[in-house]
């Protein structure tokens, strides 16, 4: 199980290799990337802060829970910190699974739980100011479908 909070660039290849298993029929990868807008405002860049030791601990708990719930072979969860430019990857998840259905369902569950529970915060920086984002809801994570 690869779990990491880091200021370094997140590399999907490393996560994919870490979850590879001869029992897996599917490896599903999710990248959370920095978008240039949020709630109608133009975003310049994001600044992520973490409580790194606790964040890794909670990420590990969620990853273990996902293995128990969805029967994954292995899980990788990596979160980046520091200044991230538009298009850069802030969250990287890879899961390996016997079959694809669990990898999609469980991958989605993992992203949601990480956004709810892991002590990481993002600050949005605009051309004319900045603000800490408070809570996952403000990012529309609970919106069930496209707006």
């Amino acid at each position, binding site marked *: 199980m690869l779990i990491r909070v880091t200021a370094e660039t997140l590399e999907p290849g490393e996560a994919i290799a870490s979850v590879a298993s001869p029992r897996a029929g599917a490896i599903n990868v999710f990248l959370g990337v920095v978008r240039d807008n949020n709630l109608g405002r133009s975003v310049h860049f994001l600044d992520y802060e973490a409580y790194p030791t606790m964040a890794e601990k909670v990420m590990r708990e969620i990853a273990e829970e996902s293995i128990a719930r969805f029967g994954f072979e292995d899980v990788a969860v990596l979160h980046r910190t520091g200044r991230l430019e538009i298009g850069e990857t802030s969250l990287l998840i890879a899961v390996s699974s016997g079959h694809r259905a669990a990898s999609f369902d469980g991958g989605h569950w993992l992203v949601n739980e990480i*956004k709810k529970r892991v*002590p990481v915060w993002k600050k949005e920086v605009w051309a004319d100011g900045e603000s800490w984002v*408070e809570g996952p809801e403000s990012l529309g994570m609970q919106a069930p479908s496209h707006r």
Partner: protein
Amino acid sequence: MGSVAYNEPMQITVLLFASVAERAGTRRFTLELDEPTTVASARDAILARYPSILPFVPNLMYALDEEYARDQDTVTPNSTLALIPPVSGG
């Protein structure tokens, strides 16, 4: 644990993050408290020292030694209490 000695001074480490750290102007400090202490009473002592963070309190969660904690949980000597604003990772 056995019986607790009352009114014994103890120290804990307090960690602040994100919006709360910016408002308080600090990220980490040591707090002296009397035993026994709960998360709620530690919070009162923190607010006495940094009243500027009062507006954040309704939305705060707490972690004791890297585990989410409740108001009534006991704070033990040398533990680390983190104030956790609403998380927004991902």
